[in-house]
């Protein structure tokens, strides 16, 4: 600082008094502008996980050696990596881009895709598929008509241009997301096990190469301003001339998918040629993050010269260069003797690449600009030794009231006419209607490996054409269940994603998550968070599959009102031969329809209570993970032996919804008699977990029933598939498939326009 008396604007950068004091203590002096900016962005909630860290440790504590067996990289790396057989490894991760997507839906969502794809590349993998988990305010709210089409167009515009098939995800509406939509982007990558690249800067003298787009003033402060503070209080940009608060461009970054596509191909050629020692993507906190993370994960010392960074704006300060979130950039560690070949590959792809520094002895990250040292810090203190908070955790007093308000007293339809009308209403409701308006804007075919995509329960892509090995992925979260009981609700999300992968015929292997919550300063929110983490970790331990990574997004609230707790769970599975995948639609005429699992009178948090009565209360459905596992084993055997012609998981909307979707997706009718033992309303709409609808040729029935008996899974015959285009539910009514299709497919186009 030129004037040591002048107060530093650390609060405007989002640092607390004690955090600022700690920086001074670490450095033994006042931080420079550049250092202050680096610490402020890296110690933000988004980058440092300072409020969640103490809870996230529980994932590690509950992961056994057996669960780690297939794990090649896990929490703490850019993305988790699991071995899937035949020498193949798969990496996957979900990340939130919630706040930018509210401010600027198109670019916010687009750069969300771009960021997660670079995370996957940073593991040395070729990105092979994306999926998006989206949550918006009420479907009919005026602002949803701005945010939803914008976010969807952004995902389409970026993802389609990148050439990655979009194979799944979710679209959910709830008033709690009106001022705070959730855009969670997932990417899956594949690589040979031997090609795994970790973000390490090792080997003194190795060069640090920045490649991809030039660095500009876009997205500066994005991390600290957008992700670490509620909108209502983000007045950080006061009139001073301090570099990092001088926001001349919007804090939402602008994406360039073409540059990213070229960057992908360039990176893969570099990996293939063995020219990369370590690699790191530039995302939140830009170079500040990439250099400090690379250095602290490697030998510790690094020198960086900011004069070498290609800029697209004149007069950028060191702090701006370090914290810029310009998109489509990567940072590699390259042996000095390989630099020329590295540059030649970049030239072939027209990718700008520059040596900006080198791995150095010692344990300091030293950054210079025009001959002057602008930062001299121990990199671990920036990247990994940020503050850790033990935020107060308290179960809200309102939780008891919420659980006491049970759905039992809600008026239920009883006559066949009323039940029939309810089926049609539910099918057309925003919560359950067809998502084709959204997903038909995404390319699901590119790269030619997509075996299943929406509207199937899981997305599935082939990773090896010679062996037909493939992977499946599904994301789920019913946030209403999580509001009623965050521990069980999160286990229900895990159970559903697990089941969605299992019904495709794949075997679930690993879990990722994107934990979207309100403000960590609210003890009630922290209680929800703690419960969700424990529920997920305990559930994974029971299922024997590890959490390989994840993302936390706090401050999802409008004023004092938090979103519903939304821990999105992603499950990855493997299938030896994608030709044995199971489709969601019904099989051929004459096939028998069976329901696996148990139905109970469970309506707490259900779609019916929400849609018909606007009610949220009571308890979520019971969870039985042992049953889910047994169900998964039945399905894996059924896939392996080619026994079933279709399988669809039962979740939101219950059996009625599953039947309608299975008929419409398969293009076949069915005649169904609801199992005896409860009234038809419960049979149709209860949301009991652990259930699957199966269609199979009659000659397979004996074998499937044996499998069910062996695994302790109840199975009941529902009816059969027939050629006539009608769904008949005995004692309820007959539905023309055209009538169902019009109801199911009409809602989103009516709300958001015909495409």
């Amino acid at each position, binding site marked *: 600082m030129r004037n040591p008396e002048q107060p530093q604007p650390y609060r405007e950068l989002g640092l607390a008094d004690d955090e600022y004091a700690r920086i001074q203590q670490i450095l033994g002096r006042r931080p420079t502008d550049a250092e202050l900016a680096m610490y402020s962005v890296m110690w933000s909630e988004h980058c440092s996980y300072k409020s969640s860290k103490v809870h996230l440790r529980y994932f590690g504590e509950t992961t056994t050696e057996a669960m780690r067996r297939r794990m090649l990289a896990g929490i703490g790396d850019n993305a988790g990596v699991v071995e899937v057989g035949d020498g193949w490894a798969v990496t996957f991760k979900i990340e939130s881009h919630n706040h930018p997507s509210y401010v600027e839906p198109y670019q916010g969502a687009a750069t969300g895709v771009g960021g997660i794809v670079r995370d996957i590349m940073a593991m040395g993998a070729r990105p092979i598929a994306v999926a998006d988990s989206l949550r918006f305010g009420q479907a009919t709210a005026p602002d949803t008509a701005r945010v939803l089409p914008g976010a969807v167009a952004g995902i389409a515009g970026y993802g389609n*241009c990148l050439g990655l098939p979009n194979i799944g995800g979710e679209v959910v509406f709830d008033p709690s997301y009106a001022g705070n939509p959730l855009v969670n982007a997932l990417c899956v990558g594949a690589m040979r096990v031997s090609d795994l690249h970790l973000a390490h800067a090792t080997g003194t003298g190795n060069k640090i190469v920045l490649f991809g787009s030039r660095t500009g003033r876009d997205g500066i402060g994005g991390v600290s301003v957008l992700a670490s503070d509620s909108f209502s209080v983000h007045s950080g940009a006061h009139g001073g001339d301090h570099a990092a608060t001088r926001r001349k461009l919007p804090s939402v970054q602008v994406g360039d998918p073409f*540059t990213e596509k*070229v960057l992908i191909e360039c990176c893969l050629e570099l990996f293939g040629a063995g020219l990369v020692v370590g690699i790191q993507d530039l995302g939140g906190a830009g170079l500040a993050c990439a250099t400090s993370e690379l250095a602290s994960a490697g030998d510790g010392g690094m020198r960086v010269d900011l004069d070498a960074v290609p800029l697209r704006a004149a007069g950028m300060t060191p702090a701006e260069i370090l914290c810029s979130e310009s998109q489509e950039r990567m940072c590699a560690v390259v042996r000095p003797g390989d630099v020329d070949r590295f540059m030649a590959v970049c030239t072939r792809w027209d990718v700008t690449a520059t040596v900006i520094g080198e791995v150095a002895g010692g344990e300091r990250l030293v950054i210079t600009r025009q001959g002057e040292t602008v930062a001299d810090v121990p990199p671990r203190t920036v990247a990994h030794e940020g503050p850790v908070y033990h935020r107060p955790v308290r179960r809200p007093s309102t939780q008891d009231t919420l659980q006491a308000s049970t759905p039992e007293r809600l008026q239920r339809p009883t006559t066949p006419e009323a039940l029939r009308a309810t089926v049609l209403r539910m099918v057309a409701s925003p919560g359950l209607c067809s998502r084709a308006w959204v997903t038909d804007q995404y390319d699901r075919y*590119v*790269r030619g490996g997509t075996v299943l995509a929406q509207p199937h329960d899981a997305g599935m892509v082939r990773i090896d*054409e010679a062996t037909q090995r493939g992977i499946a992925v599904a994301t789920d979260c019913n946030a209403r269940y999580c509001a009623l009981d965050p521990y069980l609700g999160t286990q229900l999300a895990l159970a559903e994603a697990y089941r969605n992968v299992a019904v495709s015929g794949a075997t679930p292997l690993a879990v990722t998550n994107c934990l979207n919550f309100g403000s960590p300063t609210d003890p009630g929110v922290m209680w929800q968070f703690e419960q969700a983490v424990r529920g997920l970790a305990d559930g994974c331990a029971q299922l024997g599959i590890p959490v390989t990574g994840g993302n936390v997004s706090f401050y999802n609230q409008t004023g004092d009102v938090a979103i519903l707790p939304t821990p999105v769970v992603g499950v990855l599975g493997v299938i030896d031969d994608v030709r044995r995948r199971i489709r969601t639609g019904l099989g051929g005429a004459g096939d028998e329809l069976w329901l696996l699992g148990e139905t109970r009178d469970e309506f707490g948090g259900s779609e019916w209570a929400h849609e018909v009565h606007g009610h949220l209360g009571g308890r979520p459905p019971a969870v039985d993970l042992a049953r889910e596992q047994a169900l998964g084993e039945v399905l894996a055997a059924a896939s392996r032996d080619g026994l079933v012609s279709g399988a669809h998981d039962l979740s939101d909307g219950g059996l009625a919804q599953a039947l309608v979707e299975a008929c419409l997706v398969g293009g076949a009718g069915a005649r169904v008699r609801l199992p005896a033992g409860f009234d038809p309303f419960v049979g149709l709409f209860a949301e009991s977990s652990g259930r699957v609808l199966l269609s199979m040729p009659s000659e397979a029935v004996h074998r499937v029933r044996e499998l069910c008996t062996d695994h302790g899974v109840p199975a009941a015959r529902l009816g059969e598939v027939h050629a006539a285009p009608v769904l008949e539910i005995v004692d309820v009514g007959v539905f023309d498939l055209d009538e169902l299709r019009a109801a199911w497919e009409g809602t989103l186009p009516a709300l958001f326009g015909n495409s």
Partner: protein
Amino acid sequence: MSSSPTNASCRIGVITFPGSLDDVDAARAVRRAGAEPVVLWHADAELHGVDAVVVPGGFSYGDYLRAGAIAAHQPVVRAVVAAARRGTPVLGICNGFQILCEAGLLPGALVRNAGLHFVCRDQRLRVESATTAWTSRYSPGAEIVVPLKSMEGRYVAAASTLTELEGEGRIVLRYLGSSPNGAMHDIAGIASADGRVVGLMPHPEHAIDPLTGPSADGLDLFRAVVEAAGERYGPLSSTA
């Protein structure tokens, strides 16, 4: 895996521009049809003696100008134009169709879909002309299902051009059912006057196997050219 006849001597070039996306799929379709795919690089004015060329889909150069406009000026496209004038079969798919229009090999243009959204769907099509180099294996009037996935897929042309195309039987594929993009005359694909150059918006390379596409209806486009090359070179060999 497929029992297609192969013709080892038939080589089909697939161009890669920066931003090409479906080049891997086009190469796979060429292989599945029994020919050898040859990688053609955008900056290379050389066609390496290939028997036919596929200009694949994607967003060449990001399509930040008009779709296909920058690609149309690359060295490899100049070589393609010269080869087409000598009768080499050329197939432009999606962005490839846009590029062939920009390069002047096909008339008309592709503009933004009427609905202003990207559209990805399994599209029913009618084969209107079975006399081109690429559609000779279909029966005229055959209905096929092939994925369509595009943002700028609405075919437009001057009235006189449309009359000429209709009159000369140069409309190769037409959309069936509700129009996906508002294309004039429901045009999904057209051919050059000599029937050697075909451009289409739907993606036949994504319809070569019911496992990964809605059908295998697209494979015959590639087979047609392989077969014709076989007739030139002699009988096909068959592999399991």
